[in-house]
């Protein structure tokens, strides 16, 4: 038993000598680096070493995992012999992680990486190294309280493993793009992990500082073009994976004529109609979206510079919505319809339809529902209450031209997802309107031909999302309506229209013009 311990101790000292020698060497190298080389030489050297980061980084990954596995197995009686060599493996992991972090720094100087991804990768990497050292430290120097050091050691090791995974994930995203891992993940698992399946619109934090080519244009090429225009597959001898290749052009010469999209072959091809053979992406692949076309057009008009920033280029008005979207400010469908909701229970709906209520989804892609009472002979409050079973899905409700009264509306407040409500020519009065107060999502309200008066306007003005209300043929006075619009300028109130009679009638005879 004894020999076992001594070897261990001697090893400890040799470890130290080996470690310190390494550090000294390192100091020498940095000295050489800072003093001797000039600016570009330094940059190139940095990049040269930096590129090894991709290679080196695999060492700490493997070693740390090995250490962790050995640590776990060493807890079992038949594998306890493994415990001795954990320290050795852990040390190797620590050293290699330091070197790869350094190489990482060097690589990052090259630029051309997505800022947020780079930061996350960097901090998780550093965290990984720090916790590996902590674990190593607590493994080697056992402090007085054995249980505590054991605990710190295992938590540190655990954190190191976690940060390892995080760092490598972000690293992978940097090189192979965000969805490299999840691209072919089966849909069901994707839903499980709540990864939204439709096209991810990555958000640029600081849009003004973003480089138009690198941050706006290149991702489009990367997403839709590079699969056929890359180093190992050069369709039409055109490569789009770097700026220089793009400028070099393809078999029929340059594809970009700076500041004139109309003459740029690349631009002409992406806006060609679907049946034009020259269209890109070719065949019946999805054409580029309007936004993508607008970005490329804007970039070429602004001279197709490699590093012009968004903030510096002058910006035509139609680019505003495009940039807003990229900056994550504005989603396509405003209001409640854009957020997800579970489908309603089919049998409940069947029951409602059997009562004569028309229930259909607002579209085949939505679970939101529309309900119409046109076929219900005489609707009673019970009908409205029965709608509560689908309250989270019911978005549009049409009660027009039915004998609905105020006490029907008693149950309407429960239908919180309502955005459109049509009460034209029903028997409701101001009393009923008060029930509508709680429908904060309501956007469109028709009250034509009802008995409401100015008293109801108070409630209407407070509805946060109401944009459109129809009060034609009601008892609402003009100044009542004016008050409403002043109180809530976002609200448009329709009070009916008339046609003025023309002063002269065109009679055939005298219509004979001089011609």
């Amino acid at each position, binding site marked *: 038993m004894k020999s076992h311990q001594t070897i261990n101790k001697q090893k400890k000292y040799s470890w130290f000598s080996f470690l310190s020698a390494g550090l000294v060497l390192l100091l020498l190298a940095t000295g050489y680096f800072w003093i001797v080389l000039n600016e570009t030489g330094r940059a190139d050297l940095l990049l040269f070493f930096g590129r090894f980061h991709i290679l080196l980084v695999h060492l700490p990954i493997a070693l740390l995992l090995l250490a962790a596995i050995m640590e776990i197995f060493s807890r079992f009686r038949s594998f306890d012999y493994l415990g001795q060599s954990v320290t050795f493996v852990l040390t190797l992991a620590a050293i290699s992680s330091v070197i790869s972090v350094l190489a990482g720094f060097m690589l990052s100087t090259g630029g051309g990486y997505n800022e947020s991804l780079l930061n996350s990768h960097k901090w998780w990497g550093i965290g990984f190294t720090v916790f590996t050292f902590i674990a190593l430290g607590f493994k080697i120097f056992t402090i007085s309280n054995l249980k505590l050091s054991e605990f710190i050691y295992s938590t540190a090791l655990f954190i190191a493993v976690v940060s390892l995974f995080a760092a490598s994930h972000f690293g992978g995203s940097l090189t192979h793009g965000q969805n490299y891992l999840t691209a072919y993940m089966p849909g069901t698992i994707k839903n499980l992990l709540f990864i939204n399946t439709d096209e991810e619109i990555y958000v640029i934090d600081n849009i003004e500082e973003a480089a138009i080519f690198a941050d706006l244009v290149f991702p489009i090429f990367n997403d839709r073009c590079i699969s056929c225009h890359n180093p190992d597959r050069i369709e039409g001898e055109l490569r789009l994976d770097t700026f220089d290749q793009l400028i070099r052009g393809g078999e029929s010469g340059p594809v970009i004529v700076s500041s004139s999209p109309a003459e740029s072959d690349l631009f002409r091809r992406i806006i060609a*109609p*679907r049946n034009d053979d020259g269209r890109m992406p070719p065949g019946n692949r999805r054409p580029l979206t*309007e936004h993508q076309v607008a970005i490329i057009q804007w970039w070429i008009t602004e001279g197709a510079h490699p590093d012009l920033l968004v903030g510096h280029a002058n910006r035509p008005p139609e680019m505003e919505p495009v940039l807003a979207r990229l900056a994550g400010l504005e989603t396509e*469908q405003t209001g409640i*319809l854009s957020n997800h909701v579970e*489908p*309603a229970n*089919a*049998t409940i*709906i*069947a029951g409602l*339809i*059997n009562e004569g209520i*028309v*229930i*259909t*989804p*607002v*579209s*085949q*892609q*939505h*679970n939101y529902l529309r309900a*119409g009472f*046109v*076929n219900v002979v005489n609707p009673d409050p019970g009908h409205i209450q029965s709608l509560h079973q689908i309250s989270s899905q019911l978005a549009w409700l*049409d009660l*027009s*031209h039915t004998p609905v009264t105020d006490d029907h509306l008693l149950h309407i407040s429960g239908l919180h997802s309502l955005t459109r409500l*049509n009460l*034209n020519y029903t028997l409701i009065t101001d009393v009923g309107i008060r029930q509508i107060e709680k429908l904060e999502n309501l956007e*469109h309200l*028709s009250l*034509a031909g009802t008995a409401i008066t100015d008293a109801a306007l108070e409630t209407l003005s407070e509805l946060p999302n109401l944009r*459109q209300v*129809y009060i*034609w043929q009601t008892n609402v006075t003009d100044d009542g309506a004016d008050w409403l619009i002043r109180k809530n300028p976002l609200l448009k109130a*329709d*009070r*009916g*229209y*008339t*046609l*003025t009679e*023309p002063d002269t*009638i*065109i*009679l*055939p005879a005298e*219509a*004979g*013009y001089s*011609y």
Partner: protein
Amino acid sequence: MSIRYEANLKTVEFVTRKHFLKKCVTGLGAMALGSLIGGCDSSGAIQTLAGMSASPFTPKPPHFLAKAKSVIFLHMAGAPSQLELFDYKPELHKLHGQDCPPSLLDGKRFAFIEGVPKMLGPQATFKKHGESGAIVSNLLPHFSQIVDDVTFLKAVQTEEFNHAPGQLLMQTGHSRPGFPSFGSWVTYGLGSENQNLPGFVVLLSGANQPDAGRSVFGSGFLPSVYQGVQCRSEGDPVLYLSNPEGVSRNMRRMAIDAINNINEQQFREIGDPEIMSRISQYEMAYRMQISAPEIMDIKKEPESIHQMYGTTPGEASFANNCLLARRLVERGVRFVQLFHWGWDAHGVDKSEALNYGFLERCREVDKPMSALVLDLKQRGLLDETIIVWGGEFGRTPMLENRGGTDNPFVGRDHHNEAFTMWVAGGGFKQGFSYGETDEIGYHAVSGKVHIHDLQATLLHQLGMDHEKLTYHFQGRDFRLTDVHGHIVKDILA
């Protein structure tokens, strides 16, 4: 009647389950009426029992979120002259009376023009109107007050220059008969909300029915239940709607009860689901006997509305039909098709000449069509209802010289290169004009919209992809837009 209740519930369950199961996004073709059993999970007897009795007009969800849910199509049969209404050409004014340049004639085919016709200046005066500054002639005084609610399509194109093929192309997407009309495709795709009225209603006015006859509102190879039902202003609104004299409503109720009771016994004995479907059709017929006359009776409307539209109850007029169209759409009818005949201004006789009959037509449509737009708007229905106005083609900038000599009255020949239509509501831009013609209104120079593009765009606003609304027939998936049609994005709000 427990079995009927059960069958009804099964029907509804079948239809709802089919539509609320996420995986059922198959093309609507699967709902071919012949075998309602189509669709995704065609398993088990219950849906056979239920499938057969689901009404073909059960409302169905659109492919994607729709801007509009119903359509009113105002088709001016005969082709109104765009040069006298919307497309003001001062240059043509200068060229009046001169010979037509040969470049406009060679290689072109005309219906009646022969030799070298003379140019004909606009027979009306034009002014800018509304905030949008749209130019409209003095022949449409009321319409000029609503230009800020409409979008003009100034460069609509077609291949046909004869009335019957032209109307067929506009309404069925094909210039030869035998294809389903627009309304048939829309009710086949979306069903209709009001279960007591036909889903696709046709209203005719003017001296005659459209030149291409019933096939402009026929169902073509689609099941005949989707054909346009012509609502007539004299006699029964729907053919054979009212009971024979002497048979009271109560007696008709007893008759239908007796029929359906015996049918139900027959069903128990031989089990054919088609019997349950016939039972529900008789119930619907009974309800339709009440709902159709009630909705067609415009006397119930307040005087202010009659004043606004210029309607006179009991008459068969375009004004009455516009008011009826609003009432039908308000009650959940999916597609209302109006035809107003008599726009064929060749100048051969007074009844259609540009300075006689044509003015009558303008007066007959100006007020009612404008009132229709405003009436829908004040009821909050305009943004979910599409209104389309136009003819089957345009008219030439040249004076027609049939047989080589000038016609006795002022008139223009048929012209398919470019003409004007307008659309309103249904998520289209407001106070907007799209497309331009050259300085004499002959060629379209920008913003060209072929009839198939217009059809694809209208289907798009109804939430349907015109390439996915198909019906499998003779080994092929047929479409309204055949193999053409692009969505005109610039006119969408």
